[in-house]
């Protein structure tokens, strides 16, 4: 592989589904495209997930993660994207200009546009402020899948799983694949986060599911020996040799936080308009970095749309980045993406999530007048959407999302 290019029309940070989809679309439009991926192999998170469902929307076939990841990389490469692995982006500057490093050391790359597609990560043990000792054997799902899928290593035999998001069931599947049966699945809330049928999986596999139960302390010196939990029946210790901390995803914004780009406290990701354009309009963002977490297919489509938007932008076909209509999230609303609407196209939808279980009506209002409204009965981490077409053309100022709770 030749020298890392100094410049490309579009430089994409992150070689997961979103970044690779954007690369394919931007190449179709004739742009020069470089994808920078810090891992030794491109493909993103699906590389670790050795189970379906992947690829149904994109390739019309049910695939396991690694197959899907390879297919994406092959398509992007065939489209003529310059995919560079082992390259870490260190800093974002206006220009746009990126500081990167690889085996050759640090230097800068310039671009006409940059797409950020850095994905998400799960909250760590530290981020959850979990008590107890610090033995080996405490992992996130991502790390677990890295060990099992990429390296064939099995870090424990009787782990406890904390969390009941979709990814928690992905952890069960990974463990099952490695011949490991979790001793328990814990959920601090009173209901599982993920929807049926995933939530049936523990019962099917005879894994005890403890609702309303949280970890008080992890026990063990060298390796985990048990977890002290508090639940409806009081406190007790569950013997275990590992802990899998699942979910509570956060967008991977380590690059963006120290940069000049505006971030949204609700989504945790960069502020974008309906084209995926950031507060510095030379930067775009797509995929899970926009909000925690969506499926690979969803991220792929966002990436593809962003790739087309960048091509339109460079061709002078994208409306100006201002004036905006800003979306304000009211009480009970955790996030709404995009956070602002530029003039022009009204395709797509506002992605909305709540921060607690809510039942009632979700209302989008503009200047005190409801422009869209729908019944909801939802819980955190579940996707809601409001069509952007509901917003009148040319509207500026602030539109507010609120929930009128049912009695």
């Amino acid at each position, binding site marked *: 592989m030749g020298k890392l290019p100094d410049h490309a029309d579009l430089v994409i940070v992150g070689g997961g589904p979103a970044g690779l989809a954007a690369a394919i679309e931007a190449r179709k439009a004739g742009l020069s495209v470089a994808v920078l991926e810090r891992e030794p192999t491109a493909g993103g998170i699906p590389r670790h997930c050795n189970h379906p469902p992947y690829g149904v929307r994109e390739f019309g076939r049910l695939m396991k993660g690694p197959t899907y990841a390879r297919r994406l990389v092959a398509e992007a490469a065939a489209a003529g994207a310059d995919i560079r692995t082992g390259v870490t982006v260190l800093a974002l500057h206006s220009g746009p200009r990126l500081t990167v490093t690889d085996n050759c*050391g640090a230097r800068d790359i310039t671009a006409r546009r940059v797409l950020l597609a850095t994905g998400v990560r799960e909250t760590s043990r530290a*981020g959850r402020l979990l008590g107890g000792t610090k033995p080996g054997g405490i992992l*996130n799902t991502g790390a677990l899948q890295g060990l099992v899928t990429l390296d064939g290593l099995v870090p424990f035999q009787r782990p406890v799983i904390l969390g009941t998001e979709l990814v928690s069931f992905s952890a069960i599947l990974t463990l099952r694949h490695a011949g490991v049966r979790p001793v328990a699945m814990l959920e601090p809330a009173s209901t599982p986060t993920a929807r049926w049928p995933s939530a049936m999986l523990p019962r099917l596999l005879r894994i005890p599911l403890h609702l309303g139960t949280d970890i008080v302390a992890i026990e063990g010196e060298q390796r985990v020996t048990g977890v002290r939990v508090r639940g409806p029946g009081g406190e007790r210790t569950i013997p275990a040799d590992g802990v899998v901390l699942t979910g509570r995803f956060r967008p991977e914004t380590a690059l963006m936080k120290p940069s000049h780009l505006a971030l949204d406290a609700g989504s945790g990701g960069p502020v974008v308009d309906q084209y995926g354009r950031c507060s510095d309009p030379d930067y775009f963002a797509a995929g899970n970095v926009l909000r925690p977490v969506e499926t690979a297919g969803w991220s792929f489509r966002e990436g593809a749309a962003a790739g087309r938007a960048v091509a339109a932008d460079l061709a002078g076909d994208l409306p100006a980045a201002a004036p905006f209509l800003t979306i304000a999230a009211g009480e009970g609303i955790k996030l709404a993406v995009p956070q602002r609407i530029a003039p022009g196209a009204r395709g797509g939808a506002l992605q909305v999530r709540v921060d607690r279980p809510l039942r009632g009506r979700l209302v989008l209002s503009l200047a005190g007048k409801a422009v869209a409204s729908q019944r909801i009965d939802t819980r955190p981490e579940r996707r809601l959407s409001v069509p952007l077409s509901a917003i009148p053309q040319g509207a500026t100022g602030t539109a507010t999302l609120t929930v009128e709770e049912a009695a």
Partner: protein
Amino acid sequence: MAPTICVEASGRAFDVAIIGAGVVGCALARRFTLDGARVVILEKAADVLDGASKANSAILHTGFDAPVGTLEADCIAAGHAEYREIHARLGLPLIETGALVIAWTEAEEARLPALMEAARQNGVPVAPLTAAETYALEPALGPGVRASFRVAAESIIDPWSAPHAYLLQAFLNGATLCRATEVTGGTYEDGGWTLATRRGDLRASVVINAAGLYGDLVDRQLLGEASFQIRPRKGQFVVYDKPAASLAAHILLPVPTETTKGVVVCQTAWGNLLVGPTAEEQDDRANAPLDGAVLHGLRQKAETILPALAGHEVNAVYAGLRPATEEKNYRINRVADRAYVSVGGIRSTGLSAALGLAQHVAELVRPFAPQMVPLADPVWPTVPNISESAPRDYEAPGNCGIVCHCELVTRREVEAALSGPLAAQSVAGLKRRTRVLMGRCQGFYCSAELARITEGRLSEPMVPPHG
């Protein structure tokens, strides 16, 4: 298991045997080696810095608040001065943030003059500041500051690279390091010691007990009695991710109380923001369990000091144990008729005082040490830089790529830490030398690759084998 140098060394007589490779033992090893002694340092853990020294606040104190006229005040002053003198040569960081001692209540404000007076008596310059001046220096401080004073010379260092550098310099100038070598007993006869260890006996003219949290037990084993009793005092910490570091330019200190310096908010050498420690008595000398409720409390406390922290992520939590005793002062006990010095109770200032303590103990030992001739031209190694204050390896060519993305640790750095005279022997030791696994993702991306790189090279594997 890798062969140890100890095997080679047994049978040979050393001038000085140091028990314990905490920061104090490492500083002692360097001092005695440079002074011309043949030194052996004996550590029971698989790797060095496994005791009190593994987890502290990483502040290089000036000693402005040390009890006036005490040995502790002297050792901190001397240690601080020597660190400033040698750090650049050893490749060690010194982040000169200065500290602010902040009064939030009327009662605290009333205590500031006395604290400033004590600082002056300790020879440490301080400058009083009004509330407005304080906010001008630290605009992110929450409401309610009444007044403060600034201690310009309080600084932040890397609490692991420093002792590693002391030990490496000792080692490269002839000292012997024996890890996984617990001292279990010993006898003094014919003007010398025979120390029993888990790996056999060895002879030394002088024994120095720097066993930290086990200091009293080692005294009892070797002397039959101990002049102090260790009462471990736990300190828990919360560490925020790097973007939070810009919220505090200084080390932000509360007005200290009789028992504790209180909860500090400050940057780390690695560019994080740290909050802690607590001060909690416990009996266990080995484990420092974290308490979720206490950690939440620390987070709350931090957010009253710097409200903007509410939007920041925590990326590490940890706890350390101070080797406190039933008295506040250092417990240095010289037993002249048995050529023995116990350097005990180096409670909460050992990182700052270590080099000063080593000078002091060298003076104590001089009368019963043979003619030692200081090395004329000692080797001055440099340790790899892992702090944010100097260029890092990932910026340089040939680094073999990044293994740990959060802390930007390169494969070349990991390989270097796994080889050489001070090669890491445990995952914890590898973390302390490189910071792998210590960032925001806590191993999401790099655990698997590290398990592969370290396979067969650590005393305990990262992933245990299953039959």
